[in-house]
């Protein structure tokens, strides 16, 4: 009886289409000719068992905590422990951000996440002419250990974990964090956290590079090696799709490029002589969660499965941690509208729901005012509360992978996986990720998708509430965070004081030793650590390396 039903489903579906459905369509056609996701993926009217006829439970899904981890990386998931609510924060001076961190920790936040200001991100000191107007604006100003000591003052670095969004100068900021911990009497083996340290996606999407790709990859493998030996609890690369997506890619491009970047780092580590199980378990991922609920959930599930399979097949790891994909999620900043900003609370809620249903390990929820500026304390609190409501009131954390087995979700997961492999092939044919970057492949793919999305929005193929429909005569009515001009004066004064009070001969000596190492093959991190302990600045360390490596120039593509 059951088997007969199964065999008949495609026939039954045809009958339904010809009889029931057709009658309705004849009377009233559907709202649109084409239904699609945020990524312009066409979506069918109905999914049935025929769409997942090839699904093999054991091979494709398995159980939580077991290969291929499609249903989740841990056996109990959120029943054991909720995801980490990690809100990205940083603005103004180290004193101001330190106060915000201590406030967030008091509010029940469980990990820190540092936003640096753009000069730090670009490896420039606050007194560099390029830093004009940027000091403390997009994040916290950190020039030297003097700032780092204040930033983490009265926060026990052996108790909290800290994620630092830093890429081109990631090794420098990691060393500064180690040095700040040392000042608290805590050794590098006791600290835990993450540096983003994902330079490949910088060339592809976020564009905050300093050095050309080859020396950048060398600094990254140095970091992998250094952390394996000295900072065992540190996540060495947060392989990030977030910025790829925010730059305008589709969900599949985000997934494919991120996983390809990840495999490139692993290969580089192996090529540098590291044992796979020594460093792969410390790699983690960072994805975007956009508005299309089901496409995002499918993306997260496909990510785990592909990573597990590729890592096993390519590198033969023994430790399961090496092929288990853990990830952080941030809701899509790009989806926030400047118009009617309160509506962003609802957008963020849906995106956070997708991340949780997709099995994220940690989550940042954007605040409603972030299309305008960094969040105010009130807006950031609402965003954190959104996560707490999902965790404690919605019931979604009660069972693991609640959408597993749904015809639509499983079909979508398979479809995205298939498309990811097509991108893997194209990247391979171009000579791998680094070569494809030099050829502008990713940049072109992303810019094409961004432009298509814009066209579809302007042609109203998609409706954005408050932007191209349901428009009101809107004026911004929410308070926006302003950075006090005093920040710049305070920061410049501290930098000057640091330069005067340190042992400048020693700093110079250490910087020239670093340059020698950069010209050779020695690991750079012990040299960077030695220099920043003596209060060498981020800009000075990066300039020493700029002298050796030069700066990257991107191909102009639009």
């Amino acid at each position, binding site marked *: 009886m059951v088997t007969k039903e199964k065999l008949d489903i495609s026939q039954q579906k045809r009958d339904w289409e010809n009889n029931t459905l057709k009658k309705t369509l004849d009377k009233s056609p559907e709202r649109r000719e084409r239904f699609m996701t945020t990524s312009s993926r066409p979506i069918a009217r109905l999914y049935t068992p025929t769409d997942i006829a090839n699904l093999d439970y054991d091979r494709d899904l398995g159980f939580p905590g077991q290969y291929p981890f499609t249903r989740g990386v841990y056996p109990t998931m959120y029943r054991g422990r909720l995801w980490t609510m990690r809100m990205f924060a940083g603005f103004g001076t180290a004193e101001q951000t330190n106060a915000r961190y201590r406030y967030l920790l008091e509010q029940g936040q469980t990990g820190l996440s540092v936003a640096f200001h753009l000069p730090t991100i670009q490896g420039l000191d606050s007194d560099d002419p390029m830093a004009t*107007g940027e000091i403390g604006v997009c994040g916290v100003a950190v020039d030297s250990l003097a700032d780092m000591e204040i930033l983490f003052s009265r926060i026990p670095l052996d108790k909290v974990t800290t994620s630092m969004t830093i890429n081109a100068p990631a090794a420098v900021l990691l060393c500064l964090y180690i040095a700040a911990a040392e000042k608290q009497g805590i050794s590098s083996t006791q600290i835990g956290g993450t540096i983003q340290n994902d330079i490949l996606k910088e060339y592809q999407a976020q564009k905050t590079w300093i050095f050309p790709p080859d020396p950048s990859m060398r600094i990254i493998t140095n970091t992998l090696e250094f952390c394996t030996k000295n900072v065992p609890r540190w996540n060495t690369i947060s392989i990030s799709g977030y910025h790829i997506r925010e730059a305008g890619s589709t969900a599949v491009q985000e997934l494919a490029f991120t996983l390809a970047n990840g495999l490139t780092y692993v290969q580089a580590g192996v090529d540098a002589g590291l044992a796979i199980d020594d460093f792969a378990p410390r790699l983690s991922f960072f994805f975007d969660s956009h508005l299309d609920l089901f496409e995002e959930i499918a993306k997260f599930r496909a990510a785990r499965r592909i990573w597990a399979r590729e890592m096993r097949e390519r590198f033969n790891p023994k430790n399961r941690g090496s092929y288990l994909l853990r990830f952080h999620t941030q809701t899509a900043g790009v989806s926030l509208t400047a*118009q009617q900003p309160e509506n962003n609370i609802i957008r963020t809620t849906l995106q956070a729901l997708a991340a949780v249903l997709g099995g994220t390990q940690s989550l940042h929820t954007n605040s409603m005012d972030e299309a305008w500026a960094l969040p105010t304390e009130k807006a950031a609190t609402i965003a954190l509360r959104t996560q707490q409501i999902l965790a404690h009131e919605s019931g979604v954390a009660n069972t693991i992978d609640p959408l597993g087995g749904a015809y639509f979700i499983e079909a979508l997961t398979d479809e995205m996986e298939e498309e990811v492999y097509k991108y893997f092939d194209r990247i391979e044919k171009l000579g791998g990720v680094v070569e494809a970057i030099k050829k502008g492949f990713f940049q072109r793919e992303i810019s094409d998708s961004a432009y298509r999305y814009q066209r579809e929005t302007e042609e109203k193929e998609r409706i954005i509430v408050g932007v191209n429909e349901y428009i009101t005569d809107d004026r911004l009515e929410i308070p926006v965070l302003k950075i006090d001009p005093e920040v710049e004066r305070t920061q410049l004064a501290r930098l000057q004081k640091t330069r005067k009070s340190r042992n400048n001969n020693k700093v110079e000596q250490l910087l020239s030793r670093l340059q020698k190492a950069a010209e050779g093959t020695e690991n750079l991190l012990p040299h960077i650590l030695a220099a920043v302990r003596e209060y060498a600045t981020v800009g000075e360390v990066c300039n020493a390396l700029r002298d050796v490596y030069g700066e990257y120039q991107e191909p102009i593509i639009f």
Partner: protein
Amino acid sequence: MTESERKIRVLVAKPGLDGHDRGAKVVARALRDAGFEVIYTGLRQTPEQIAEAALQEDVDVIGLSILSGAHMRLFPEIMKLLKEKGIDDVLVIAGGIIPEEDIKPLEKMGIKAIFGPGTPTGEIVEFIRKNIK
């Protein structure tokens, strides 16, 4: 006839340290599709580099895109340098994340329009066609 054959030349420029170029590139492409000649500077250009590019490329329009929050420091500097170089017949427009309260002061400096997030690209094309000297 010959007059109208010269394409409108636009410099899309990115001052500031941010790497957010999605908007700048989408606008650059829309302007190109609308038949304009578009030059994109690439990221992290100083006010000096932007003014110099405007002069060298002999553009009719400069579109500034910034999302870092440094516009109140960098835009006045760009406007000052344009004046110093004798570039006074260029239409300067801007976009990115620019709070409401900054718009009036920027317009006073000679920036003719600020296009915020969500602006249809067609609106920018139309504005340029109407306001080009």
